[in-house]
């Protein structure tokens, strides 16, 4: 058997098409695995029910309302165009508020009050702004209806 193979070259199975396909598959799987995007985190720590010490100063409290169409209100005042996910005005105002309460030695507490029909994306936009400003004390309240 083996002797014949060494004599007649045509007797071998032609592997070229198989190798072509195998390489295609390899490239396909390599590309699809790297394309899958990694999800990132946007964390919220829910307030605990622990009682605060009676002498701890009250935090500066601000309310952010999110209406059903994505309009964001800071303490009742409209801030940004609902079409703008970056919320630049909200970001600037919150940064100033945070800096002034930091100087006064107070914590900044934000209470987000999304409408029941507000999309998750609008809530995430606000959380994103809070994250970039560096506000960690966040609480969720009932939305305006």
């Amino acid at each position, binding site marked *: 058997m083996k002797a014949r193979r060494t004599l007649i070259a045509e007797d071998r199975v032609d592997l070229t098409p198989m190798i072509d396909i195998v390489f295609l598959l390899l490239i396909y799987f390599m590309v699809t695995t790297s394309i899958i995007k990694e999800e990132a985190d946007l964390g919220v720590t829910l307030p605990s029910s622990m009682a605060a010490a009676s002498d701890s100063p009250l935090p500066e409290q601000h309310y952010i309302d999110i209406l059903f169409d994505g309009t964001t209100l800071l303490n009742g005042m409209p801030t940004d165009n609902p079409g703008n996910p970056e919320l630049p005005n909200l970001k600037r105002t919150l940064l100033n508020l945070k800096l002034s309460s930091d100087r006064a030695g107070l914590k900044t507490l934000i209470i987000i009050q999304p409408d029941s029909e507000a999309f998750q994306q609008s809530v995430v936009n606000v*959380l994103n702004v809070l994250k970039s400003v560096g506000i960690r004390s966040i609480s969720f309240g009932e939305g305006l209806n």
Partner: protein
Amino acid sequence: MKPQRHTEEGNDLPDLTPMIDIVFLLIVFFMTVATLQVQELIEIDVPIAADAVIPDDRSARAVVTIQNDGALFFGSQPISIDDLSAYVEQAREADPKLKVYIRADAKVPFKNVRKLFSVAAEVGVQNVIFASFQSNK
């Protein structure tokens, strides 16, 4: 010189067997990796947040997914909101440092997410994480 010898003696072809072996191994590797990644997560349109961070450590997470029609999943298993607290409770008992990882579709109304907040608060899990993509590319 070379082409002539090829046609005369089959033995002269390079032996492709080891290469094919390795290529097959690679294919199997990438196939399993790809299917593992797909199986883990229910498909949704994750909201976009530029300042979110990709975590190093994804342990101790109860993954809860809400699709934009309101369908709820604990891990990859469909579940109703009433059963969810029992599952989260169980997971929290197994790991007290449990965080609830909420994968909500960008178009989910907040009322559905609020229910998950109450489940987390009820069970005593204080860390809630929202899934997001850093960019829409």
